């Protein structure tokens, strides 16, 4: 029994040793596995960071693409939403992005694997880019029926290309045997940097304070400014006008070119910015969308390069003469010809004339001639005394450019042209001496009295308006072949009607047959305006609603309450081709609030400063948010940080009426190198320095818009302010939404201007015209015109700043 105990201790020891060995080896195995896991985790995290960096950089790069690059690489993004589904971009761009990122990774010596036989750097094995969940920005459905409502959208401006969706970018990295894939989803928007339908217009005004708001500038007969003239109702003198050039490609009209050809006309009709002069109120306090009163623009006399306006009526026979060519009247049924009177050689004609407040020998101007109806020195009329003679004042607003740079366009709204016309007889008598006279008007009784007394033709001239001897006699009854009817045809004519609302008059559009301007003859004032060519009759895009220009008592007044803007020729039926219509509605109701800037979710960034406590805080924040500071040629300038549509929310305690509480976007000059739109929800904005586009050939290539929902734009800082931007202050409320002056002399806007009101009040209410007696200049940027091919350049792909979701997975 005792012998079996032999080896017991050894057995115990061996067993314990074995158990310990198993335990220790197990522990060691676990530790080794944990060690490997830790090392693997290290490699995974390193690869993850590189993969996330990759997708972030690629996303950022995509958001920098301009229209041309988008068109090359992702043409689907520029399709109308109705024609597009989820898609991935081609391998070409993906490969280039992959190679670029690999080039970057090849500079990471810190991560190089020393044991690798080849490069040892982290490798980008794959890059994919896709666009998903795409939907239209403006596609809002009827809550009841679920149907789209394009007709409702047309009132705000409807762009069928603008869209929103998700960008999905993935990047796979291989590093020391580990493969990791990062995918990000970032919301994207394809939006146009054209702010809204109002940007189709070089100048857009919702309303005009009163019919004669613009007629306050004194010009000499030659067209030169008459500095002594004071417009007494407002107690102001003007030293310059507001010149509107409706396209930076405007053709200079020279006497050597008789007329523009069809192609030029067509191109101009399409490219030019139009002008909307909103109607004046018929009663005090009338809502904007009910106003229908006229807007009169008195064309200034003369051919002065900047301020002479008669080029709008016609063109001088030569630069040297600086006089309008006369209209010769050969009407044998009413006026006897010169051959009927032995020894006489005369012609009867008519001459168009602009308004003037002073001329040689007549310091009182056109009013003192007592020739034209509604324009005479009548002491019973307020303000109409020699120092005022305001009825002879001319328009401060030049909608058609200047003499050396004519820029005709369509004027929408009840704009009426004010000009004068007189008739004359001019000839030589039997002894070869000259004579000439201007006919005046008189009632039938006065006419009959002269006829009964066998008076000569010279007795029908205005007082002091006959020179020379009429020998032998020309009896009036022998000259006026159909009596008073014939004489009446030679009455001096003032185009401005006296009734309000006017039941007669000349629409501004009548002067030019729109873009066609045949300087060999005057336009017929008794017929509707005609298109430059019958070829245009079916092209509503060029002259929308032109067929209705012959409606109503005044030909040529362009309707503004049912106005259309189309993208392309043809397809004008909005029910059948909704995607070809950009806007359809009542221009009086168009404001920032009602435009697609606010109605549709086009805004890409929101800066909420509502809880800020001071203006300086707001100014500092908005400057840093929108711009970065660069030093260019020794001067600090503000450069936009990014493209986008930015909505700025002012602090709630801001005094919206106080110019001193207007937001200053930046106190430095702005150098534009990208496009952006800045919308301010409340209060004014002060532009304290020039805004200049770096890329400026014949127009700013980058589109910048400042849009104010409920405030005025102030130009500050002194000198002439240059602004390569579209300025819009459309509040929908009278006297809110103006361009005002805080210390500059005048301005040059290369873009356009949309304001609630522009013209002078009779009182002292501030408006653009009151604040800028030196005038200014507006050049339209045709990149804002949705009817041109340039409009497509305005599309941008904008990504949210940070990814909404990042996914990390194994790469294989």
């Amino acid at each position, binding site marked *: 029994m*005792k*012998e079996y*105990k*032999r*080896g*017991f*201790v*050894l057995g115990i*020891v*061996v067993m*314990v*040793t074995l158990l*310990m*060995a198993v335990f*220790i*080896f197990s*522990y*060691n195995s676990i*530790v*080794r596995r*944990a*060690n490997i*896991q*830790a*090392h693997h*985790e*290290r490699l995974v*995290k*390193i690869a993850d*960071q*590189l993969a*996330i*960096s*990759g997708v*972030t*950089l690629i996303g*950022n*790069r995509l958001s*920098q693409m301009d229209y041309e690059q988008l068109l090359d690489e992702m043409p689907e993004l520029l399709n109308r939403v109705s024609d597009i589904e989820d898609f991935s971009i081609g391998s070409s*761009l993906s490969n*280039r*992005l992959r190679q*670029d*990122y690999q*080039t*970057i990774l090849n*500079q*990471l010596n*810190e*991560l190089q694997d020393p044991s690798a036989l080849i490069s040892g750097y982290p490798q980008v094995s794959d890059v994919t880019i896709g666009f998903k969940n795409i939907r239209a920005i403006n596609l809002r459905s009827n809550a009841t029926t679920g149907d789209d409502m394009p007709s409702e959208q047309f009132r705000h401006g409807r762009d069928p290309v603008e869209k929103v969706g998700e960008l999905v970018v993935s990047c796979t990295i291989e590093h020391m045997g580990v493969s990791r894939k990062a995918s990000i989803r970032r919301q994207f928007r394809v939006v146009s940097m054209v702010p809204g339908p109002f940007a189709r217009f070089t100048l857009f005004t919702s309303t005009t304070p009163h019919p004669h708001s613009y007629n306050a500038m004194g010009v000499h007969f030659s067209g030169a400014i008459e500095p002594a003239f004071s417009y007494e109702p407002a107690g102001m003198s003007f030293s310059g006008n507001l010149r509107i050039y409706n396209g930076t490609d405007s053709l200079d009209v020279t006497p050597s070119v008789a007329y523009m050809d069809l192609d030029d006309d067509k191109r101009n009709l399409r490219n030019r910015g139009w002008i909307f002069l909103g109607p004046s109120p018929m009663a005090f306090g009338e809502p904007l969308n009910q106003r229908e009163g006229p807007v009169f623009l008195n064309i200034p006399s003369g051919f002065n390069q900047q301020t002479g306006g008669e080029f709008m009526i016609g063109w001088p026979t030569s630069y040297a003469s600086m006089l309008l060519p006369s209209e010769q009247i050969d009407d044998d049924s009413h006026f006897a010809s010169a051959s009927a009177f032995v020894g006489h050689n005369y012609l009867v004609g008519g001459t168009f004339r602009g308004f003037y407040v002073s001329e040689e020998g007549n310091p009182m101007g056109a009013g003192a001639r007592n020739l034209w109806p509604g324009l005479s020195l009548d002491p019973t009329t307020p303000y109409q005394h020699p120092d005022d003679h305001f009825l002879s004042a001319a328009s401060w607003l030049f909608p058609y450019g200047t003499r050396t740079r004519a820029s005709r366009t369509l004027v929408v709204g009840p704009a009426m042209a004010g000009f004068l016309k007189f008739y004359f007889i001019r000839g030589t008598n039997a002894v070869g001496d000259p004579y000439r006279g201007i006919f005046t008007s008189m009632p039938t009784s006065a006419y009959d009295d002269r006829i009964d007394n066998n008076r000569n033709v010279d007795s029908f001239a205005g007082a002091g308006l006959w020179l020379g001897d009429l020998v032998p006699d020309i009896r009036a009854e022998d000259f006026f072949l159909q009596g008073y009817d014939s004489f009446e045809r030679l009455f001096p004519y003032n185009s401005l009607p006296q009734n309000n609302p006017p039941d007669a008059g000349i629409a501004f559009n009548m002067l030019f047959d729109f873009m066609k301007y045949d300087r060999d003859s005057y336009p017929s004032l008794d017929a509707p305006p005609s298109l430059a060519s019958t070829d245009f009759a079916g092209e509503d895009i060029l002259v929308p609603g032109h067929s209705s220009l012959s409606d109503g008592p005044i030909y040529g007044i362009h309707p503004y309450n049912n106005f259309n803007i189309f993208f392309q020729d043809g397809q004008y039926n909005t029910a059948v081709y909704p995607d070809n219509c950009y806007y359809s509605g009542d221009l009086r109701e168009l404001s920032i609030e009602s435009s697609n800037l606010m109605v549709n979710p086009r805004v890409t960034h929101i800066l909420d400063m509502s809880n800020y406590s001071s203006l300086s805080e707001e100014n500092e924040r908005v400057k*840093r*948010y929108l711009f*970065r*500071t*660069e*030093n260019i040629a020794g001067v*600090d300038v503000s450069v936009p*940080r990014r493209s986008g549509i930015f909505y700025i929310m002012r602090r709630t305690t801001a005094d919206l009426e106080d110019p001193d509480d207007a937001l200053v976007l930046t106190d430095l000059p702005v150098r534009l190198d990208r496009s952006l739109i800045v919308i301010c929800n409340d209060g004014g904005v002060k532009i304290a320095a020039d805004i200049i586009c770096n890329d400026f050939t014949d127009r700013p290539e980058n589109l910048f818009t400042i849009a104010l929902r409920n405030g005025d734009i102030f130009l500050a800082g002194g000198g002439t302010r240059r602004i390569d931007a579209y300025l819009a202050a459309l509040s929908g409320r009278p006297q809110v939404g103006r361009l005002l002056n805080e210390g500059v002399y005048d301005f040059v806007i290369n873009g356009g201007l949309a304001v609630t009101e522009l013209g002078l009040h009779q009182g002292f209410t501030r408006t653009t015209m009151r604040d800028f007696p030196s005038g200014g200049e507006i050049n339209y940027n045709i990149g804002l015109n949705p009817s041109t091919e340039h409009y497509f350049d305005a599309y941008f792909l904008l990504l949210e*700043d*940070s990814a909404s979701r990042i996914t990390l997975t194994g790469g294989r």
Partner: protein
Amino acid sequence: MKSRVGVSMVEITIALFVAALAIGPMIALLSSSNRMSTASTYETLAVYYATEISDQIRRLAPQLPDILEDARVKTGVSNLEMPSIFSWDPDELLFYDNAKTVFFKAAGMNLDARLILTPLHRNFLRRTIDVQQLDNSALQEFDAESYYKVIITIEWEDDLTQGNVSKELKMVVIIND
């Protein structure tokens, strides 16, 4: 007969010999495993420390241009470059007690942006952030901007460290301005 009773001396000797043969390597193995375990713990910690920084920098990346401009305004140096706002003194990032807020700096002045960092384990010797501009001359698509690599370095020593050579981890984040 008496000598045959109980455990023989030979047996005990053999048992001791076997035990001695086995226990020595096993203790060595156990010790090695412990060191390895500690090493992997440190490596995991190092990954954590580095990731903590890289995640914050990645989130700050969209605001870095703002931060840089702020630095330019505060210092009055208009040509201040991105790497200069990442210039922390190594001691600022090396602490062992409580979590700490580390502000971005320019010319000694604190900027608005900051990193929040956890304290290091005592075995960690270094935590640095270095930014270097990358050469973009060969890039096709990315050539419009400046690119930087942010190198996060964590250095520590553990029981596996031999010859006073510490271990380090480098993590890289790529940013652009």
